[in-house]
């Protein structure tokens, strides 16, 4: 197998990898700006320079020349090479900045050039704290500036489109954004204009940067030149915690980080997962965080004398159980939800079975024409496939409507959905029968007819599993704390947030904006128990374990198997 020596250590490799990617894969850090694994390689930032040599081959024997110690003689290339564009070869010897003063000097000088016209915006720049230029300038750059002249001033605060703001001064012309629109999103809306010190990326006249994936250039930008209009100046990176999870705007389940400050979701950024979304996230997924912050309920309510009244959780459970207990199981309609996790739907199904009711059905939320065959889908729910794999099928609207009219349905149990708002039932039709509702937001229109309203934890507050449209099962983790004490959630928050931000054990902990809700996997067992059907689990992990063992469509899909990147259910032997 071919070998390469990097800083004196020998590595074996296969094929013809590029040197920079190989180093990054093997934990050898090399500074770089323009290189991105998903984009073409222009090698224009000149930051990843290394010294490269090859063994000298004796022309007569065709074998490497050896020195007096029996070691091959290495001839180094006269100039430094950009490691991002360099194909590795057998016998190659590489010196990085760790062993070569020449390389360290080149990187330092290159940074000096990059910083000559870079404004000192760091104290107010959104990128500060997660800025590759800032980090690398600290690590490899010169200590001070020798530039005594006026810096070049370029346009600032240019709205490129509805979601992306340009600060041309900060740009180092790595062209990542231009390459993204040319190669990945193919909208061709950005270009670098002018030349020399005057150049910067912008849209051509008359073109708006309204690409549905436009905000990816914000993450690609290695400086603060492209920032999110939505998140500008809201929070510094070090004030927030980032939790790896998935977005629930559509059925793709793109991997993301939820950035949280004071128990509010501030920003959603992509998380790399080659099996689902590569490095990208559609703009709609990023801006879809208001539903976690706004119009959130404040504790459970029950209907008394026609009005919803705030009660304790125990009273709410009692009331729900009392309403259901007098009714024959067959006459209760259980509505599952494609918004809820697999675990919650499974518990609902178990409850329905225990009461002798039909298997729950779910309300599909399909928006034809919304999908683009990439990261947006027609299905606007995250877990339709998860429901179907549990045997929870889309609702037959005509059937349940006629059953409701004829009085065959005497109670409705809704898991995290909105049958009135989605047009399945009218409010009048539900007015006379008990409705028990798990809901996320106070905008839920079924609240008007609900008899017991139970606030449910959203994807950013719960633990659970979602199955995306391609059958990829992925875990979600709690990003923000809820008001109720739940030991499983508390433990998981500590685990999912490396900085422990939001747990009561650190100094940033605060109780602002905590929502009084509970995950449905806590609510459902409480109700079931009061109906005489114990449904206790030690946590969602154990529910999923049971699902993986008992339901063939989920075979093997345990939390351990899913990890951070999820699993393709087909690949671990689950039935379709």
């Amino acid at each position: 197998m071919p070998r390469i020596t990097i800083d004196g250590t020998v590595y074996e490799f296969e094929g013809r990898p590029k040197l920079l990617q190989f180093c990054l894969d093997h934990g050898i850090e090399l500074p770089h700006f323009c290189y991105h694994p998903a984009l073409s390689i222009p090698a224009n930032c000149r930051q990843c320079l290394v010294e490269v040599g090859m063994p000298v081959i004796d022309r007569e024997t065709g074998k490497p020349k050896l020195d007096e110690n029996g070691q091959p003689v290495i001839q180094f290339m006269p100039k430094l090479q950009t490691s991002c564009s360099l194909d590795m070869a057998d016998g190659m010897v590489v010196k990085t900045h760790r062993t070569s003063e020449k390389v360290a000097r080149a990187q330092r000088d290159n940074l000096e050039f990059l910083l000559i016209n870079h404004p000192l915006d760091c104290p107010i720049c959104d990128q500060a704290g997660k800025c590759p230029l800032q980090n690398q300038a600290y690590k490899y750059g010169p200590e001070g500036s020798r530039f005594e002249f006026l810096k070049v001033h370029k346009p600032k605060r240019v709205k490129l489109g509805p979601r992306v703001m340009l600060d041309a001064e900060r740009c180092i012309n790595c062209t990542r954004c231009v390459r993204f629109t040319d190669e990945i999103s193919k909208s061709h809306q950005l270009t670098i204009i002018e030349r020399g010190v005057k150049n910067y990326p912008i849209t051509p006249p008359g073109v708006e940067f309204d690409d549905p994936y436009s905000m990816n250039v914000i993450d690609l930008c290695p400086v603060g030149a492209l920032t999110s209009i939505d998140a500008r100046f809201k929070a510094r990176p070090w004030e927030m915690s980032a939790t790896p999870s998935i977005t629930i705007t559509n059925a793709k389940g793109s991997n993301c980080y939820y950035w949280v400050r004071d128990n509010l979701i501030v920003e959603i950024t992509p998380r790399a997962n080659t099996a689902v979304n590569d490095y990208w996230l559609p703009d709609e997924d990023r801006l879809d965080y208001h539903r976690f912050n706004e119009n959130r309920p404040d504790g459970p309510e029950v209907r008394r004398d026609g009005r919803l009244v705030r009660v304790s959780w125990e009273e709410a459970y009692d009331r729900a159980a009392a309403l259901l207990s007098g009714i024959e199981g067959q006459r209760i309609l259980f509505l599952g939800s494609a918004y809820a996790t697999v675990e919650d739907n499974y518990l609902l199904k178990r409850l329905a079975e225990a009461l002798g009711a039909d298997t729950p059905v779910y309300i599909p939320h399909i928006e034809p024409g919304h999908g683009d065959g990439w990261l947006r889908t027609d299905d606007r729910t995250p877990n339709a496939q998860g429901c179907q794999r549990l045997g929870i099928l889309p609702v037959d609207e005509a059937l349940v409507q006629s059953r409701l009219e004829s009085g065959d349905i005497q109670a409705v149990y809704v898991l995290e959905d909105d049958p009135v708002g989605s047009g399945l039932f009218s409010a009048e039709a539900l007015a006379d029968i008990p409705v028990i509702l798990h809901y996320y937001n106070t905008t839920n229109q079924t609240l008007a007819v609900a008899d017991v309203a139970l606030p449910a934890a959203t994807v950013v507050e719960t633990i659970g599993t979602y199955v995306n449209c391609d059958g990829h099962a992925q875990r979600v983790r709690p990003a923000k704390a809820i008001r109720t004490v739940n030991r499983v959630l508390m433990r998981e928050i500590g685990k999912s947030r490396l900085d422990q931000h939001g747990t009561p054990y650190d100094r940033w902990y605060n109780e602002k904006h905590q929502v009084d809700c509970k995950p449905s996997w806590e609510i459902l067992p409480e109700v079931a128990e009061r109906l005489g059907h114990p449904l206790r689990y030690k946590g969602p992990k154990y529910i999923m374990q049971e699902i993986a063992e008992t339901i063939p469509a989920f075979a093997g899909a345990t939390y351990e198997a899913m990890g951070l990147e999820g699993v393709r259910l087909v690949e671990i032997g689950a039935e379709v």
Partner: protein
Amino acid sequence: MADFIKKPVVPLPDLQPEPQIPADQLYFTEEEKQKIARFKEQYLEPAGAVMKTLWLAQEKFGFLPPEVLQLVADELGIPYAQVYGVATFYTQYYKEKKGKYVLDVCTCFSCQVCGGYDILHYLEEKLGIHKGETTPDGLFTLQEVECLGACGSAPVLQVSNGPYVHNLTPEKVDQLLENLKQGKLPPFVSLTLPQDEAELGGNRRSDAEAVESYRTPPVAHHTR
């Protein structure tokens, strides 16, 4: 450029400009389209022909406003943004309307040392305009440019991306302006190279004879 050093501010281009070429004139004729098709054949990808096509468009429309760039992009089948990037990169593509004759006075190192600024300021006074401006009669635009690559005959100016006028003196400038007002472009002048110094008796600064040809051999195969 000197201004840029004193006050280095890059302006933001007008992102919502009014169209300047009437819609009924904004097209390529069949003949021009055939020419562009030939340009495309000369390169592996249509994008390769962008510079030639832009040049053709500039000769047709006089300058390259965004609607012309869009026309070029559509004709070549490449992104509009890419054409815009190319057009802004080269100062020889005029992004706004210029005078009939554009005088590009070089003030880069060699010309500067040999009096490039004197010539520039002389022209400014004579035409009554500042650099970057156009005379009210629309005849002349005066520009300060970077190296024109003719340092051996500094100071130099170029007329409308075409012929050079070498070894400038105020008298030569006067003569040039008179000729241009009468519609006479200066001839293309092929100057001697340093190795010909011996032939000229060691004096490279004396003018060589003007050659009425825009081409010097060797000429690329496809342009013959």
